[in-house]
């Protein structure tokens, strides 16, 4: 009998530590992102999930621990270093230049130049090619926008989010990280962004999704990484637990043992949350 080998995680961390003076933001955290999945990272405010994500995207250099990309150990010297390794982030405030058009935003910081002398000596931009490729990337993700030359500020919140996601997907080679993508959106637009995330995953690009929105997390995530007190409290499948149980794990009322069963850690809190051990 041969067992299928476990797939190599695309992005993995073991024992990450980061301290700021007396505060330990990351306290021996582990992390695994498997190929082709949407992994939601949830945790209460102050749990340290932002610090964890920053360490994984190069914005913060951990004091200890190991990060592996596709099995190879790696250290990031800064956010640009992570981008160079194919890890793209969609920030919560989108980081778009409002008065510039969609194509310009897609290539912001990575503009294409005309071939030959025009490109090298005169540094002329290849606007036509950028517009074409931007259109292709948007069409690839089935994002419907009438004109690519309209400025980003004239778009709705959901459309702007779609442009930011398309940009990250266009450049990402390994991972796309999304920080609270539906936080500022209404119901319909959230639905459209969640569909978009599904399409990204179906293209084969794994997604790390940071979110406070439990219904959205349960709708889209293949697995949920619950972060608590600077470490990974549990990584579970949303199909195996109820939303209330997951929230209880997040707050510490329940813990998950090795068999995947929940154990009441704090009976008062568990009772208040309406959950019990399985």
């Amino acid at each position, binding site marked *: 009998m041969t067992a299928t080998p476990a797939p190599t995680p695309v992005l993995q961390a073991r024992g990450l530590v980061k301290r700021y003076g007396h505060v330990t933001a990351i306290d021996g955290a582990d992390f695994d992102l498997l190929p082709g999945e949407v992994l939601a990272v949830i945790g209460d405010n102050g749990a340290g999930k932002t610090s964890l994500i920053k360490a994984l995207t190069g914005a913060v250099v951990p004091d200890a621990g190991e990060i592996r990309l596709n099995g190879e150990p790696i250290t990031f010297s800064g956010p640009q270093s992570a981008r160079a390794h194919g890890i793209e982030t969609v920030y919560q405030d989108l*980081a778009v*230049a409002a008065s*510039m058009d969609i194509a310009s935003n897609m290539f912001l910081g990575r503009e294409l130049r005309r071939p030959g002398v025009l490109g090298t000596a005169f540094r002329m931009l290849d606007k036509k090619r950028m517009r074409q490729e931007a259109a292709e990337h948007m069409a690839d993700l089935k994002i419907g926008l009438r004109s690519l030359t309209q400025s980003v500020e004239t778009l709705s919140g959901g459309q702007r989010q779609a442009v930011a996601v398309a940009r990250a997907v266009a450049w990402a080679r390994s991972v796309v990280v999304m920080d609270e993508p539906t936080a500022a959106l209404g119901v319909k637009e959230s639905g459209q962004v969640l569909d978009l995330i599904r399409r990204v995953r179906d293209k084969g690009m794994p997604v790390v999704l940071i979110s406070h929105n439990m219904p959205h997390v349960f709708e889209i995530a293949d697995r949920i990484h619950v972060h608590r007190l600077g470490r990974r409290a549990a990584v579970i499948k949303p199909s195996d637990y109820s939303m209330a149980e997951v929230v209880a794990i997040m707050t510490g009322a329940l813990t998950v043992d090795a068999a995947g069963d929940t154990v009441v850690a704090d009976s008062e809190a568990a009772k208040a949350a309406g959950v019990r051990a399985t």
Partner: protein
Amino acid sequence: MLNVAFALTHIYSEEQTVSNLPGPLTALGETFPLGRTDITYGSLVTIALFLLFAYALSSTGWGRHVYALGNSAEAARLNGIRTSRLTVGVYTVAGLLYGVAALLLISRTGVGDPQAGQTDNLDSITAVVLGGTSLFGGRGSVLGTFIGVLIVGVFRNGLQLMGVASIYQTLITGVLVILAVTVDQISRKKAR
């Protein structure tokens, strides 16, 4: 810095207008005939600079980065643009242009007058805002500025020829600025 530079010119020149400037300094004031009129070399330099920056801002990566920086420094930084370097670069270019402008001014008048150009500061802002550049950054074009410059220049010149006192010129130009900023605000609100 404006005050420092202002004070230094007055102290250095001892409030005197400096005449007898060496040839090369006023070379840009020399003219050449074109059709029935004479064009100064200074005008050619000005037009060349306008064309150069129109190109740089609209068709190079540097130009796009400058616009992005004006839109949102944080967004620019998150996209890999080196914002500190870029900011220093923009101010350096601006400094160079101030130097050229000073040369053009003394070439036009033939003397170095510490009082000269005092209202040009306000006029520049007026011209730039009239031309569509937003005071909040991120928006504008060199062509728009060129048109703004023509408007303010013709205005000033016309008022001068009419014999309107300098202080009224300043008043009218000031009203123009208010008008320009108001239009800028309204058009930005409409764009949203």
